[in-house]
């Protein structure tokens, strides 16, 4: 009984993108503690090495430097993968701008990283039959764009809204293979997503007051939601958006 753990990821091979920091790093750490074998990827090699150092069972993991907005990088990453029991797609960027000021250059970049990269990574992995039966795909989406609207959040929100819809379609089309697909939808988390100085301390404090729990979340609090969706504890859960936001969307 003492070893009972329905959230175990023992011997599951899991690909984690955006693993060099933030929610990706926290997810990597939690997955390693639960016995997973990890394939980490990011464009930031220093960050990946640091994440690797923080993992349990250090020598059962590996990392690949890849820019997933490039088709070639997706193809070579997929070619190096044998079989997967899970994937967590984290990589994400933002640049807050009011609608009147949005531009194609920034929107292209945000869509490329937040939407097209996870879409085509998933497409290639599925087409090449890399996911085993029972595998679980998790997209880090957001409450932003999907459940909430905020000033300056049009581009990011649209990119995440598109990913949310994609998640449901993957869930539907993969269900017959017992491959599940879900999302975690965090509220504001203390990560490096927003450049320091994007908002003033006063604005930040005001925003925190819109969270019933009166604080932002920590990466680990999202990572443990991801763990649930990766594990067999959620074996009948697919197409679900798991909101992790300290109650923000209650308002």
């Amino acid at each position, binding site marked *: 009984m003492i070893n009972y753990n329905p959230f175990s990821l023992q011997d599951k091979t899991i690909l984690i993108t955006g693993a060099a920091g933030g929610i990706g790093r926290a997810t990597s750490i939690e997955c390693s503690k639960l016995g997973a074998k990890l394939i980490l990827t990011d464009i930031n090699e220093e960050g990946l090495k640091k994440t690797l150092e923080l993992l349990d069972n250090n020598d059962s993991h590996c990392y690949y430097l890849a820019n997933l907005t490039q088709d070639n990088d997706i193809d070579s990453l997929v070619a190096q993968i044998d079989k997967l029991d899970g994937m967590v797609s984290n990589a994400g960027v933002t640049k807050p701008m009011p609608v009147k000021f949005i531009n194609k250059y920034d929107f292209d970049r945000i869509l490329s990283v937040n939407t097209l990269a996870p879409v085509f990574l998933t497409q290639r992995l599925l087409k090449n039959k890399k996911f085993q039966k029972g595998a679980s795909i998790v997209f880090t989406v957001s409450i932003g764009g999907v459940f909430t609207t905020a000033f300056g959040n049009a581009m990011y929100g649209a990119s995440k809204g598109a990913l949310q819809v994609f998640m449901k379609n993957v869930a539907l*089309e993969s269900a017959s293979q017992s491959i599940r697909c879900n999302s975690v939808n965090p509220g504001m988390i203390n990560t490096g997503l927003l450049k320091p100085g994007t908002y003033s301390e006063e604005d930040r404090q005001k925003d925190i007051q819109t969270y019933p729990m009166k604080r932002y979340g920590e990466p680990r609090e999202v990572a443990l939601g991801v763990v649930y969706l990766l594990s067999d504890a959620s074996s009948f859960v697919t197409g679900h958006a798991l909101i992790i936001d300290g109650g923000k969307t209650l308002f």
Partner: protein
Amino acid sequence: MEIKEFIEHFAEQFDDTELSEFTPETVFHNLEEYSSLIALSIIAMVDEEYGVALNANDMSSSVTIEDLFKIVKTKIND
């Protein structure tokens, strides 16, 4: 275009059906795994591999894999 290669591409759209089940004479609508999603996958595969747009009628009027192969072949030559 060879029928052997066509059948390989056709079979790739299935996950659980044994490779030996796929022959020119296979009545593919009767395969247990055949579904509307697999029909869409076959149409997309034919578009990607052969540059041919199949329609729903092509799929439903084909009884065997060879029937479908012949339709694709005709459309390539059109």
